[in-house]
């Protein structure tokens, strides 16, 4: 029985803190960040996590100019 693939990381993006600069998209090595639909409270088109494939590398966190827009999580344990 093949084990279900578990991502090593996960990110949360605060939709209203994002300014849509897309630098996180530029630096993400596994291409799991994309533009979201619509505009946020600031009037920018924010980004979102595609929901799968994050490795928890943290590149997006340091490329993001907003202090609290991105939080990176890493897998503590699975199963």
């Amino acid at each position, binding site marked *: 029985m093949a084990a279900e693939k578990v991502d090593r990381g996960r990110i949360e993006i605060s939709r209203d*803190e994002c300014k849509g600069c*897309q*630098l996180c998209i*530029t630096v993400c090595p596994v291409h799991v960040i994309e533009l979201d639909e619509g505009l946020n409270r600031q009037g920018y088109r924010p980004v979102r996590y595609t929901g799968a494939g994050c490795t928890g590398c943290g590149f997006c966190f340091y490329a993001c*100019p907003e*202090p609290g827009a991105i939080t990176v999580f890493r897998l*503590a344990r699975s*199963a």
Partner: protein
Amino acid sequence: MNSPVYEPFLQKPRSFYDTYERKSGIKEVTHYCPGCGHGELHKMIAEAIDEFEIADRTVLISPVGCSVFAYYYFDVGNVQAAHGRAPAVGTGVQRARPHSIVMSYQGDGDLAAIGLNEILQAANRGEKMVVFFVNNAIYGMTGGQMAPTTLPGMTTTTSPGGRKVEDSGAPLRMAELISQLEAPVYVARGALCSAKDISRTRRLVRKAMKVQVEGRGFAFVEVLSACPTGWGMTPPDSYQWIHEKMKPYFPLDVFVDRTDETFTAPAPKEPVPLEKYHEVMRIDSSDQLSFPPAQPLDPKYANPRLKIAGFGGQGVLLLGLGLAQCGMMEGRRVSWLPSYGPEMRGGTAHCHVNISDDEIGSPLVSQPTVLIAMNQPSLEKFESQVAARGLVLLNTSMISKRPDRDDLEVLDVAASEMAQKLGNPRAANMIMLGAYAGYTGMIGEKTIEAALGAIIKKRHLIELNVKAVAEGFALGRAARG
């Protein structure tokens, strides 16, 4: 099967405030444009402050430029410096409070243009501070003008045909320039334009902060940083532009690293207690006289905020200084702020004085409780500013009109004529000082006599001024009845 458990790995550093109280609206975001490099560098610095647990003793010297508002973001001490002067202000902070971690954060207009002297001198003295130099090749805040770091041929609002090296010189390579000095311990340049460069810059920032934690000396980190708005490109394109255009001219390197040299940091000194400042400043206070504080004759005269105005030559600044000196000698908190404007000759000169039992928030007196008007233009100019039911002292020798307002308490003093009778019309200011003291009781007559010795340089004039004060004091007391 249990679902996988994730734990936070990277999150907003603790040394940022939770919310930024700059403006109403969304208080979780910075004022920076999308893709601005300042935010990235802020995050690295905040992370280092967290790691070394130095938030309580870090003092950020914020500059003039877009990052002027850094104090809304970093939960550390702050002094806002005049344009380019952050290294000079940082020097003062570090020397007065040796235990603090001093951090100057400056842009290229601030550091490499107007503040070039300050940064070079501070670096050359080896001041214990870290300087973060954000190089985005233009003046960002003011709309993208040419800066000392603007690249050859680069178009800006003030170099529409591209920067010409033959006219404007070549761009300044600040890290290289500073690395030529003897004192700096650590000088490096990083860039914010790719995951790899960002990781490297984080290490530079951390190391420069570590130099401070260890008390080693001066550290300088230049950071090539994007200004997508000023450059007129998207943030991803600005990353590319740093990579292709800026890096070749501003090579990334560690230019000086003396952190491996044997070094024994002196034991961190405790902050100097306030009562010992005169020792640090080498002020001999043995001849400072002190007097018990005089009590105002009416509670409304307590904690006065004074504006003193006249024309140049009437000694209004000295009058203010005298009041402040008296207040100080009576153990009160005082401030004296002279106002030098581009006034016409014979126009009004004025000063602001606070005398207070509590701490003084600002030396500026915008709503005086007392106006001392030595000539008519001063009354006309400042009458409207006086607080409700405030006190106005009029030099009636020079003022023929009455105040327009009817809520003001007015004391008439023919100061210039009285001074003339004493033999010197220039003593009118001291007559006014005496009249104020006598009328309000805010200052003791003995204090004024002693204060004159401290503020009047020409010894032979002291006797005349003491007489003038006495006449004014008697007039003020008599008017009280």
